[in-house]
């Protein structure tokens, strides 16, 4: 008799233990499933983004020489040079690149970064570094001085 009741207690204990294990497993399963669904969703979003910005790193490496060309054109009056720059820009615009050159505009947090200020106003008096957008997204903020 004693033996039997001990067995029963052991069984009950075992049941509680297994129920707990099951609950834990189900909980874990839900979490894993949720993680997976999130991953699928994110994967989809990232792919779309990737396609939109596939050219981003190439475009980014071109920004510096592009800016230098612009500086050259400001210094050197040369029709040929201007033609080269126009050509260059035509290709970039087709790829979705836009320039941000906000001289005279009001400071805009989304597209600009202030590097210096000459007064209490918020009007851009100088663009020290041009900004760029690729397919509508800012890839380089314009660095500006405001007054």
């Amino acid at each position, binding site marked *: 008799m004693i033996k039997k009741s001990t067995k029963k207690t052991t069984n009950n204990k075992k049941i509680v233990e297994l129920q707990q294990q099951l609950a*834990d497993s189900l*909980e*874990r399963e*839900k*979490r*894993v499933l*949720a*993680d*997976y669904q*999130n*991953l699928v*969703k*994110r994967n989809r979003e990232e792919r779309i983004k990737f396609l939109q910005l596939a050219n981003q790193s190439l475009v980014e490496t071109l920004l510096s020489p592009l800016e*230098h060309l612009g*500086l*050259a054109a*400001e*210094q050197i009056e040369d029709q040929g040079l201007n033609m080269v720059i126009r050509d260059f820009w035509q290709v970039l615009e087709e790829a979705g690149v836009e320039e941000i050159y906000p001289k005279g505009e009001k*400071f805009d*947090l*989304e597209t*600009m*970064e*202030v*590097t*210096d*200020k000459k007064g209490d106003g*918020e009007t851009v008096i*100088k663009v*020290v*570094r041009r900004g760029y957008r690729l397919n509508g997204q800012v890839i380089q*903020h314009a*660095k500006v*001085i*405001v007054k």
Partner: protein
Amino acid sequence: MSNKTGKIIGIDLGTTNSAVAVMEGGSPKIIPTAEGSNIFPSIVAFKNDEVIVGASAKRQMVLNPETTVNSIKRFMGRKFKDKAVQAAIKHIAYELAEGKDGMVTAKINGKTYTPQEISAKILQKAKADAESYLGSKVERAVITVPAYFNDSQRQATKQAGEIAGLYVERIVNEPTAASLAYGLDKKDNQTIAVYDLGGGTFDISVLEIGGGVFEVKSTNGDTFLGGDDFDNEIIDWIVAEFKKQFGKDLSKDSQALQRVKDAAEKAKIELSSSQKVELNEPFIAQGDEGQPLHLTMALTRAKLEELTDDLIKRSFGPVRKAIKDSKIKVSEIDEVILVGGMTRMPKIQAEVKKFFGKEPHKGVNPDEVVAVGAAIQAGVIGGDVSDVVLLDVTPLTLGLETLGGVRTPLIERNTTIPTSKSQIFSTAADNQTQVEINVLQGEREMAADNRTLGRFVLDGIPPAMRGTPQIEVTFDIDSNGILNVSAKEKTTGKEQKITIQSSTNLSDEEVEKMKADAEKYADEDKEKKELIEARNKANSVAFELEKQLKEYGDKLDEKVKKEIEENVKKLKELSEKEDASKEELDKATEETFTSAQKMGEAMQKSQQAEAAKAAQGDKGEKDEKKKDEKGKGDKSKESAEEGEVVKE
């Protein structure tokens, strides 16, 4: 999702930058900000009724310095009169005031904010970014603080979390989080140094881990040393070089200076992976006659190291102090971890290595390592990371006992399991019909000093000369850490095996003790092993020569034979002598070998003669055939041919 089951995020709330991470599918993942970067500036801007946090706040900082709050962490839980507060005031543009109980507050647009409230804005951004990334509400977090933070500062950090709507499950020390990211919590009785050089502050911490608990032994640092100082050194150098070359001061022209700043930062980053960078900024200024001036110079890694040498040296003052305070010798530090973006600089890595005498850990992105560790801690609390360590490596070497009581390793320690390894062994004596496999665990060279996991006998080996039978021994550990050892005699296919359940269930202390013993006795063990190997070699050389003497002795000059026999006898006696040294054994083996070379020559001759005989035999047969064909042979010719063959 209920509060209990929601994800817990790990937040590195830094002075300059912050980062957020979460456990996902069992591993930590950095949560990108809404802007797409992995870290964001710990900057909060107040613009009318709007609060801007992160990169956007940084972009307008120059425009609204009085309403943009940076480095608020420096003021967390501090009194206004604190020395540290007074020192930091110089570096900020917003107004600080003395608040309730003398605590620091920030005054923005006439409103008073506690540092907790400002930090809460940073944490709110972290929470919002995490929610958008995870697609569910986030209500719990683990937040890191510097190891030197006192109770009041920790309390303030916790309050910041609560203001942000986060239940702070735990406040974790930053160096502890970094150690967690490298899995160092799984080690026991280790001393860890964490060298953290970030954007604006430098921290060094010495920790000790024992029984899963991290204890901070000492901390030190420089609250105003960071990446920006390195940038400034490069900028100053470029400006000075340009001035030397063209007499123009680029720092006076805001546009030129901005280009120099950008170029300097880019160069600093590139020089971590390359030896030299070209700085090219055409049309950066105009000469006295209006002609365009171009900045073109090369910056080498060596030059960068020279420019920043003082800054690097400056960091080692606090390092020395921290070591001294910890009362631990540099040589006693087991692990070194690098944290903070600046530690990507090869020179810093080299100096840290030089100082501590060991390679620092640097696999995890140093900008993210603290957040990653916080996420791991969060995972442990949330149940994503089980406290039961999944055993993925063998903690100690597994091997077997071979001739002379030497331990021969089969599976080295730290081998990822499941794994299997086989090796062929043989008998040590002539006509040996059984071998005993003694399965050993441990790092010592001698079998007796290791732990025996089990032993079994493989019998029924066909009698043969020593070294002839091929016995393949296989060690196989499955993913549960169960070790199966089998021994198979290759000619008969006879096999014996044993299963050892407890190959890996040693306590951490046992593993550590065994490893420590191995280190302690390494030299002694090596000597013992080498002596036995020398004895084994002497024995087998003597045995081999004896065998050859029996075979070729009659072909030897009697004097030579006698000499070899004597040498072999001496070698045999020496190898049986208990106190024979390794040197004596090696010398005797060498001498015996040399004297036996004559036997080798004789053997070669005799073999060639046999070969010639065989060849002659063949030829003879052919000749026989020829003779048959021709009918008659010529004897004198035959002997001449034989002579020729021998000559060959």
